[in-house]
């Protein structure tokens, strides 16, 4: 069923009204969610009319409906992609069986853990971004921020629905806990480290939406291959929403680069200090932000060798990125994969059973995708006739998970000493001064069509609206 019932308290396309117990449980959770949104959602956005995209059904014709919606009256709900009756478990030991509509008892704990981990990232990013509305570089950007926020909130709903519907009392408790943990909270932080980092400025926001939401694309894609069909359908619909979040990041950085390049050409300058005097973000600072967000994000894929990942795969719970498009046996019992290790003070490749290296497989897929986007950013510089090029750091650089957690590795992939690290870290990762400089540029620009000095306007508006459209009305 594709139609979303908006007449219900909780909009849904899962016939919620036919399951009174579940409906009551979710209606009990809803006020807590709204309270969480009031406490931790976007700062000072109450009463704004925001030009938001809302799904009216989950088919291509209906899922992107645009209109001004008063914050926070966005109708969060439960939307699953259309069911494929013939869907099978496509990998692992259950390959070829019909996809599961209920949780297999023996995999219950693992599935719950995966759903909770994914669910925990969704409200975390809302929390990380809550102050950004106060420094939006344009009306257009402010709208994009709110769109991302409401959809991250909806992704939380999606995971909470699964917990409530399929995991009984445990699930309800986990759903409560999702609202109790908070990003960066000393006592009760979010589960994954990257989601406890601050997103203090819009450069960080664009980097986050480019790199970390792209992690979302890969994780959701791997989960959408799951043999547990409700999880697969949930993730498939979330992926359609995630795309916009990555777009905000990719185009945001392009616009920053474009503006910086224009100023550099206009004044014939290259020295970062000179560039900063013109109120735009110098290219080395952008590179350092990139290094930080790239390395923190690839940690999200987990340890390079993981027996959990092997179990998730073998039991059909979590597949690989584009699992069904791959030409192997989808069992992987006899396959090997090369992972990185350190031997004699150097990085070396080592073959390990692929099943144990599935985190690394997903990470490498992700890295390929990320690197391609960085090449697109470089074309902005290339077109402007600048010699500077952004590069992604080596995947062992600045890692806090897995083999390299306790090692110092340079961005170009050399094992280095603590001393060399300390001497160079300010060139490789954003320094306090860098962050303070970027923060100094952040001032609110919300008049339609106007842009902050440090960023170029977008090439096209949202939903074919002009760039100077009033995307957010402040009432």
């Amino acid at each position, binding site marked *: 069923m594709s139609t979303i019932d908006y007449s219900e308290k909780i909009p849904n396309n899962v016939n919620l009204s036919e399951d009174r117990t579940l409906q009551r449980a979710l209606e009990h959770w809803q006020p807590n969610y709204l309270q969480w949104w009031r406490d931790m959602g976007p700062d000072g956005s109450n009463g704004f009319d925001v030009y938001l995209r809302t799904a009216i059904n989950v088919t*291509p014709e209906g*899922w992107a409906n645009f209109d001004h919606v008063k914050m926070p009256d966005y109708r969060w709900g439960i939307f699953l992609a259309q069911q*494929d009756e013939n869907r099978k478990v496509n990998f692992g030991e259950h390959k070829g069986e019909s996809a599961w509509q209920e949780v297999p008892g023996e995999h219950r704990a693992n599935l719950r853990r995966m759903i909770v981990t994914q669910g925990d990232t969704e409200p975390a990013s809302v929390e990380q971004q809550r102050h950004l509305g106060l420094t939006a570089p344009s009306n257009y950007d402010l709208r994009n921020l709110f769109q991302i926020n409401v959809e991250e909130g909806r992704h939380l709903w999606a995971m909470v629905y699964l917990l409530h519907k399929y995991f009984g009392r445990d699930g309800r408790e986990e759903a409560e806990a999702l609202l109790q943990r908070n990003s960066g909270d000393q006592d009760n932080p979010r589960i994954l480290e990257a989601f406890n980092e601050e997103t203090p400025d819009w450069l960080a926001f664009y980097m986050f939406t480019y790199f970390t939401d792209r992690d979302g694309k890969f994780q959701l894609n791997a989960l959408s291959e799951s043999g547990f069909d409700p999880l697969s359908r949930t993730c498939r619909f979330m992926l359609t929403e995630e795309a*916009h979040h990555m*777009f905000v990041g990719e*185009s945001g950085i392009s616009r920053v680069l474009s503006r910086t390049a224009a100023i550099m050409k206009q004044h014939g300058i290259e020295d970062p200090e000179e560039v900063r005097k013109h109120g735009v973000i110098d290219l080395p600072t952008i590179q350092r932000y990139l290094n930080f967000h790239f390395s923190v994000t690839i940690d999200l894929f987990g340890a390079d060798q993981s027996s959990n990942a092997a179990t998730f795969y073998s039991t059909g719970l979590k597949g690989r990125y584009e699992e069904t498009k791959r030409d192997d046996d989808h069992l992987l019992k006899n396959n090997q994969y090369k992972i990185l290790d350190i031997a004699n003070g150097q990085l070396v490749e080592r073959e390990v059973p692929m099943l144990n290296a599935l985190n690394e497989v997903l990470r490498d897929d992700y890295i390929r995708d990320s690197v*391609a986007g960085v090449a697109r950013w470089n074309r902005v510089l290339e077109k402007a006739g600048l010699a500077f090029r952004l590069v992604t750091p080596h995947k062992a650089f600045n890692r806090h998970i897995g083999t390299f957690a306790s090692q110092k590795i340079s961005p170009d992939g050399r094992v280095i000493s603590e001393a060399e690290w300390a001497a160079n870290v300010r060139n490789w990762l954003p320094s306090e001064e860098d962050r303070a400089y970027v923060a100094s540029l952040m001032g609110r620009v919300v008049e339609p069509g106007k842009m902050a000095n440090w960023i170029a306007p977008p*090439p*096209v508006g949202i939903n*074919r609206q002009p760039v100077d459209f009033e995307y957010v009305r402040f009432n």
Partner: protein
Amino acid sequence: MNAPEQIVLIRQHLIDPEVCIRCNTCEETCPIDAITHDSRNYVVDPAICNGCNACISPCPTGSIDHWRTLPRTAAYSLEEQFSWDELPVQQEVPEDSAVETPAETAVEQALADGMQINAAVSPTSAIAPWSAAHPYINLYLNKNPVTATVAGNYRLTAADTESDIHHIVLDFGNQFFPILEGQSIGIIPPGVDENGKPHYIRMYSVASPRSGEREGYNNLSLTVKRVVSDHDGKAVRGVGSNYLCDLQKGEQVQVTGPFGANYLMPNHAGSNILMICTGTGSAPMRAMTEHRRRMFAKGQPLDGKLMLFFGARTPEELPYFGPLLKLPPAFIDMHLAFSRQPDQPRAYVQDKIREAGAAVTALLGGDTYVYICGLKGMEAGVMEALREACSAAGMDWAAVHAKMVKEGRFHVETY
């Protein structure tokens, strides 16, 4: 004809590589797998895209909504598109060129095997008649096809003719598969092609009316010609058509669809329908005629007229020849054209249109909807005959035609 050869232009659907963020949403959304990617770009295959626009709204960037008008022979290949850093600029288009848009050229009919893009060079309506029933489209796609059971398969053309056309009935049991006259379905032939990839879907117009091939049963029929040679006469064994023609009763078929939102019949009882077709192009005409015939048989109010021009080489090769002859003249004004009858001059549909010029123009002046379907070769002759008939009646064909196209009243599908 001495007219200079017209350059056929297409509107090619392209993705702007400068704006696209490679999020994969378009590829995931495309119902007929026309979108693909390499490590560099997402691109649209011009041989597959039918302009259904399902990809447009889910795209977060707007990069998907780009179109270039260019000669069909110069369409950008996948390889070219993969190599782009930015979109090519729109080249100047000669003013007198005919332009096809994918939206107008919904892929509906497979004569030669493979996805047939509507080859129509005449302007055709991009919208359905105002009173058309609302169609369901894209309910079942490659990723979730529906399984139908063959309820019947018999040869329509005489056994001693070269042309092997089959009438195939597919039953959907209790599965939801609503179809309207003029819509088409996709068939997924089992197995793989020479590159080891699963066969892509083949499109076929449905020959039965909305109430089913057998009224009250959840089934539909197709009119399929067995393809044994390509357009140039070279021996080629069509994958889809041979698979379908060889099916036995009780076998199962993977079906996608329904497809098509424009080539639909008017629903108001006063509307006239002018149908011009050849060979298996008769499938949608049979569907529309049968829908009206059932209304007629039940005594339902029906003021509109039906007029049919139908061409084949011989009566033995004309699908549905027998049943057609049983229709009363009060119900349908029928003109059959045969081009290979011994002892008779060759006659084509355009000749019959000229002969019936007065009746045709009388109809064109009224609340009439025109449907053309068949081999591409018929199109120029038919258009010329319609122009001549109008001219003889003092009507301005260009104006009539343009108005009908705009109002969803002129539908052309040729291949």
